[in-house]
């Protein structure tokens, strides 16, 4: 008996089948990871949702400012607001409490998940800086008094202060010091109109130790020797007390958020009840899933659109939300569950709008992204967080629409 092998290998079909299997496997695994309580299945990998709900804290800081002038008080509010916003504090409000003959009390209420010590630094420090030179009659080599070198009273003021520098730049990476260790540095970038003058000042002080005084404490700076004929413009560079990138960011905000015109002290700080919204993530997920299915069943019953279109948009919604949830669970990204629910609802509506109105897809996506970028740049606290989440979800939803279209079309052909 002869055996005939009818070997017709269709490469395209095989690749399609394999791709379908892989996408199905991806869908199932992302859905399982995204579902609540599935993190209890594995002890090796933690994929519980990292919610911010229990991380919120709230404090009020009472500042006593040595002025009654409305303009100075407004300026202080500006600078403090910029610092807190720059650090990503979710909610902060500054109240003018009371004024007496020569001072004003400000009450700053902060509601955030950021590190409280860093926030306290941003609020409590005036961070007024200026360049100083050593007093000639002070002995800086005295071993018995090691604090001489950092006390501002042992230095003379110069004409150089924060008005003369456009920015204090702190590189993201630590730089190598003269003794071989690494630390963060602050580079004082002078204004273009003051370049020559500062260069001249540093040339006069070359080889000497000057310093940068911040709120009465000095960080010394050894002025380098200028090479003959060198036209290189030197910048003042001093080390900062920061061990990690967040500490460096806080210092950068203190330097660059603006100049506080008057002295103030932190009189007191009191704990308050956090103002965050806690929701039961498990209940919301179940309720959301039921509502989503109910909506699509309703649209199908009332023949709102073709079955294919409804299935595509439903699948795209599931893919978008499961990919996003899987990503934030595996990367342990801290998330506001309340905000997550709102963005999930809006994404669902958006995907349905994009599928049912293919002509409008470009307008809606580009319009939404442009406006969300604006909100991220100019908005405050929760607005910026909302905008970033929505931009991410819109990007994932565009990918999900492609996947769901391809998947439905190819599953039909199998």
């Amino acid at each position, binding site marked *: 008996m002869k055996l005939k092998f009818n070997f017709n290998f269709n490469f395209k079909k095989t690749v399609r089948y394999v791709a379908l299997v892989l996408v199905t496997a991806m869908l199932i695994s992302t859905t399982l990871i995204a579902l609540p309580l599935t993190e209890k299945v594995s002890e090796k990998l933690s994929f519980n949702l990292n919610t911010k709900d229990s991380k919120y804290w709230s404090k009020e800081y009472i500042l006593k400012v040595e002025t009654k002038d409305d303009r100075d008080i*407004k300026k202080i*509010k*500006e600078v*403090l*607001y*910029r610092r807190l*916003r720059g650090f990503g504090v979710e909610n902060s*409000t*500054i*109240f*003018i409490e009371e004024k007496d003959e020569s001072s004003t009390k400000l009450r700053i209420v902060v*509601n955030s998940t950021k590190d409280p010590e860093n926030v306290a630094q941003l609020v409590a420090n005036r961070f007024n800086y200026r360049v100083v030179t050593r007093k000639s009659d002070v002995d800086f080599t005295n071993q018995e008094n090691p604090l001489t070198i950092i006390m501002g009273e042992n230095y003379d003021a110069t004409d150089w202060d924060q008005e003369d520098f456009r920015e204090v730049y702190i590189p993201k990476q630590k730089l190598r010091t003269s003794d071989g260790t690494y630390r963060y540095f602050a580079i004082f970038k002078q204004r273009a109109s003051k370049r020559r003058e500062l260069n001249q000042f540093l040339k006069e002080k070359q080889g000497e130790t000057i310093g940068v005084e911040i709120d009465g404490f000095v960080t010394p700076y050894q002025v380098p020797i200028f090479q003959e004929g060198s036209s290189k413009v030197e910048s003042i560079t001093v080390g900062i007390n920061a061990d990690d990138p967040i500490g460096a960011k806080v210092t950068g905000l203190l330097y660059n958020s603006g100049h506080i015109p008057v002295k103030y002290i932190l009189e007191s700080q009191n704990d308050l009840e956090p*103002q965050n*919204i806690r*929701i*039961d993530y498990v*209940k*919301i997920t179940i*309720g*959301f899933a*039921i*509502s*989503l299915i109910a*909506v699509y069943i*309703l*649209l199908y019953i009332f023949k*709102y659109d073709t079955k294919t279109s409804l299935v595509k948009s439903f699948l795209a919604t599931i893919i978008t939300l499961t990919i996003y949830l899987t990503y934030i669970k595996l990367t342990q990204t801290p998330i506001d569950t*309340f905000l997550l629910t*709102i963005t999930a*609802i*809006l994404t*669902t*509506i*958006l995907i*349905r*709008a994009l599928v*049912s*109105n*293919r*002509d*409008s*897809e*470009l*307008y*809606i996506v580009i*319009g*939404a992204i*442009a*406006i969300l970028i*604006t*909100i991220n740049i*100019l*908005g*405050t*606290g*929760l*607005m910026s967080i*909302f*905008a970033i989440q*929505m931009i991410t979800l819109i990007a994932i939803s565009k990918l999900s629409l492609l996947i769901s279209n391809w998947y439905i079309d190819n599953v039909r052909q199998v």
Partner: protein
Amino acid sequence: MEIFKSIINNWSIYQLISLAGMFIFVLLFILFASWVLSGKKKEFITFTTISLLSSGILTVLSFIILNQVFNESIRYIFLLTPIVVLFVEIISIGMLLGFFTSRKMHKEMDAYSLKKEMFKDSLQITVFIALLIIAFILSLTGTPFTFILLTSILSIGTIWINFLLVSIIFKDE
């Protein structure tokens, strides 16, 4: 009114300017985009302007009513209400614009089909918002409940105001 006094006294100028700048930029961007994409149609400018202004005025009025009549304090979470309403506006205006430009290209454009399409889209979004919000709102109380309810009502209201505007503004030539 207390809300506005509180904003003026407690917000910094930087905060006021950046938020005002944000809303003005968004308004002008949407107006410009709808003017250009609709082929410089006067009706679209009128529609978009009235739609955005009415949703803004409604939002502010609702805050005032909530604060004065229901004694609810307008907390920081309510800053998200105009943002969510704006997002729904973008979807609504975008859908109308897309339908208009595609029909115009095929020379099948008439006011009746525009109104019919707008009604269909508005109903669809309303059903989505209503059903999805129900699942969410049942587990909330206090300020979060008020925020979600208010934002949903304003979003649905905005959509149906847009439908009304389409019925009034767009007429066959």
